[in-house]
C-alpha cells in the first residue's frame, strides 16, 4: 500500500494545497493590487513548476533538454503574447 503513495508525490500534493491557500490569502487580507498580483505570480508559477517536475516527469528521459527547451519556448511565446497585447492595447495609451 505504501509504495502506491510515494512520499515525493504526497509531499508535492500537500505543497500545492498550501500554495493554493497562500494564493487565497490575497482576498482574505486587504493587500494592495500590486502586492496581491506579485503573490499570485509567485504561487502560480511555483504550482506550475511543481506539476511539471513532480507529476509530469519532465526531466526523466533522454529528451529532457528538448522537452525543457520546448516548454521554455512555449512560455516565451505566451509571455510575449500577453505582455505584447497589454502594451499595444492598454498600457501604450496611458
Amino acid at each position, binding site marked *: 500500500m505504501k509504495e502506491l503513495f*510515494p512520499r515525493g508525490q504526497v509531499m508535492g*500534493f500537500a505543497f*500545492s494545497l498550501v500554495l493554493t491557500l497562500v494564493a*487565497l490569502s490575497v*482576498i482574505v487580507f486587504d493587500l494592495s493590487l500590486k502586492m496581491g498580483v506579485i503573490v499570485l505570480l509567485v504561487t502560480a508559477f511555483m504550482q506550475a513548476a511543481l*506539476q511539471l517536475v513532480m507529476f509530469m516527469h519532465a526531466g526523466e*528521459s533522454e529528451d529532457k533538454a528538448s522537452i525543457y527547451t520546448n*516548454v521554455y519556448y512555449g512560455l516565451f511565446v*505566451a509571455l510575449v503574447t*500577453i505582455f505584447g497585447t497589454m502594451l499595444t492595447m492598454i498600457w501604450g495609451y496611458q
Partner: protein
Amino acid sequence: MKIDSSLPLEYSTEENRLKIFGFWIFLGAEIALFATLFATYFVLVEGTGNGPSGEELFKVPTLMLQTIFLLTSSFTIGLGINAMRLGKQKAMLSFFVITLILGLGFLGVEIYEFVEYVHEGATIQTSAFLSSLFTLLGTHGAHVTLGLFWGTFIILQTKKRGFTPETTNKAFIFSLYWHFLDVVWIFIFSFVYLKGMM
C-alpha cells in the same frame, strides 16, 4: 520493435519515447492557445458595460470546490502512473477512475456556475468582459470534457489489453494532458478569479 526493459514500459520503444516528446510539443502549442485567450481577457476585463463585474460575479465556495477537485485529480492521476510503473493494474485503474470522477465533479461545478451566471443576467453576449471570460473558461472546460472521454477509453483499453508498451504509453500521455489542464486552471484560479475578487 526493440524493447528496452531498463525503462518504464511507456518509454520502452523509440516510437513510444517520440510520441511522448511529440505530445510535449502539442502542449507547447496549447500554452500559446491559452495565452491568446488570457491576453484577450486581460484587455477586456474592464469592459463590463451594463453587466456585472467579476467582483460581483465570482464566489469563493464554487471556486475552491473546483480548484480542490482539479488539484486532487492531478494528484490521483500521478499516483495512477506510479501504480502503472509498479505493474499494479488494479490500483492504476482505480486511480484513473477516481481522477475522472473528480474531473466530472469539477465540470459539474463549472456548469452549475455558468447556469448561475446566466440567471444573474451575465451571458456571453452581455459584455466584452463576459465574452472573454466565457471563452477562456469554456475552452478550458471543453478540454476537461474531452479528457473525460479520452480517459474513459484509456481505462477500457487497459482493462481489455493489460499493460503493453502501447497502452501504458497512451495512459502516460493522457496523464500529461490532465496535469496540463490543472496548470491552466491554476492560472485561471489566480489571475481571473482571485485577481477579480481582490
